[in-house]
């Protein structure tokens, strides 16, 4: 069974996660400096989330996002919970990214706080660990 049973629940958790990330000055200023924006293409349930230094937008992505990341909500849950490591997810094709790989390599370590925050956010939203 999918971790996320409704689209609303998935949208609420993942957008909240990145709203919190954007409160971190280092994260936001690095994104701004590097002209970084990310279009998350989530499946099962399906929605798109666009993140840039100015905020999080749902199903309203400009065509020009620097990075596009596609994964299922189950994969996103396993990833942010720390149960699935990025290299494993990537090699198994469970995460697919388009855009500058050099930027992905620079950006990935900045995501560390998301791993720390996610379990509590998911729990609060009633998502099983």
């Amino acid at each position, binding site marked *: 069974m999918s971790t996320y049973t409704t689209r609303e629940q998935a949208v609420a958790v993942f957008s909240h996660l990145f709203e919190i990330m954007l409160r971190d000055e280092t994260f936001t200023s690095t994104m701004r400096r590097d002209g970084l924006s990310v279009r998350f*293409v989530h499946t099962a349930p399906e929605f798109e989330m666009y993140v840039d230094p100015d905020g999080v937008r749902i199903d309203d992505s400009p065509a020009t996002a620097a990075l*596009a990341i*596609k994964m299922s909500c189950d994969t996103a849950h396993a990833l942010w919970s720390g149960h699935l*490591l*990025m*290299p*494993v997810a*990537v*090699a*198994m*094709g469970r*995460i*697919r*990214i*388009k*855009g*500058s*790989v*050099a*930027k*992905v*390599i*620079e950006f*990935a*370590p*900045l*995501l*560390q706080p998301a791993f720390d925050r996610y379990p509590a956010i998911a729990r609060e939203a009633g998502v099983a660990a």
Partner: protein
Amino acid sequence: MTAVDVHAFADTSLTEPTLTEPTFTSLPAHAEELRRLVREFAQTRLRPAVRRLDEADAADFDWELVTEAHQLGLTRLVIPRHLGGLGYGELGVAVALEELAAVDAGFALIFGATMLGQAPLLLSGDAGVQARFLPLFAGDDPVLACNAITEERAGCDLLIPEAAEHAIGVTRARREGDHYVVDGAKMFITNGKVAHYGTVFANLEGHPGASGLTCFVIPLDAPGVTRGAVADKMGYRACLGTELQFDGVRVPAENMIGGEGGGVFINIAQMNMARAAVAAIATGVARGALDLAIAWCDERVQGGKRLREHQFTARKLAEMAAKVEASRLMYLRAAHLADTRVPAPVFETATAKLFADRIAIEVAEEGMSLMGARGYVRDWGMEKYLREALGSRIYEGTPEVLALAVTDAIYTEDDGDF
């Protein structure tokens, strides 16, 4: 070792890479600039040393030339700028390695192997391990890395996921508190003799074969590490393929990357990233042989005219040139895709290497035939290209390993674009 200033190269004269798509006729500006710089170095500094490097003892290593290449940035091309690197992707790496390999493939592989030793750290996304090791490459003195997979009893078995379970006698790792203890031995490890650290793949205790393959970053001066004999290779003599012995080597848990059992995934991702660059090395070997053949066929007169004016030799030269062109286009495309897609595409990178490996052998062999007896004599340099071409097809996937990857990709359904 000298203190490391990660910003030392921040104001390098090289342009910061941007993600511009290569066109069919030109490279992005940053890659073109790097190509010119490396070509100049390869032709003026490396070329005069080639014969000496080729004939030296198997264990000789030219730190002086490596230092010059380090000063050009070749040891830190793929390291992000904030860690003192140049932030290049595979495209930049590939064009640089083609230039070096057109003169000496062994010298090119010194830097290729270093990047292979850097790749797992980059792929891990682990800021801690990156900060501990990657800034080392930005110091004044050259620092090299190696990537240690191959063993006495397990070669391709460590590159084919389905074969991993059957691998025999693989280097072992067991957890002991906040450390892992690594025991075993690796062989043919490029830079093993001279690298500062190795990314070492060991099988976790309790897993059959290599099904628990795990990647560790191990400084090669750690207690219990012995750098063993250097293989006396028929080509690629400028780089040293070395045995590495690990006897009860204690590795801090923070130096394990990609998770327990994640080695196979790191390895796959690393290979898919690296194959475009290895294809570029093979293309460079083919180009070197072609350039030599072109010069010779313009100079040598038989039957009252230059060799290139004979229809049979013209045909040979044309075929050789077409193969080099096709091979270059394939690796450029594969490198661009590897720079813009995660995971790097298997099909394009593996076919680029498969093709480049084959045409390098064909072009070098044809080059030898065009030079007659001189092709068979060391003084003229053509036979060296054939020796190197035969080496390129072994590492980062033999033709058989590549064929399995390619057919797997052919029969795997893509879930479409997004």
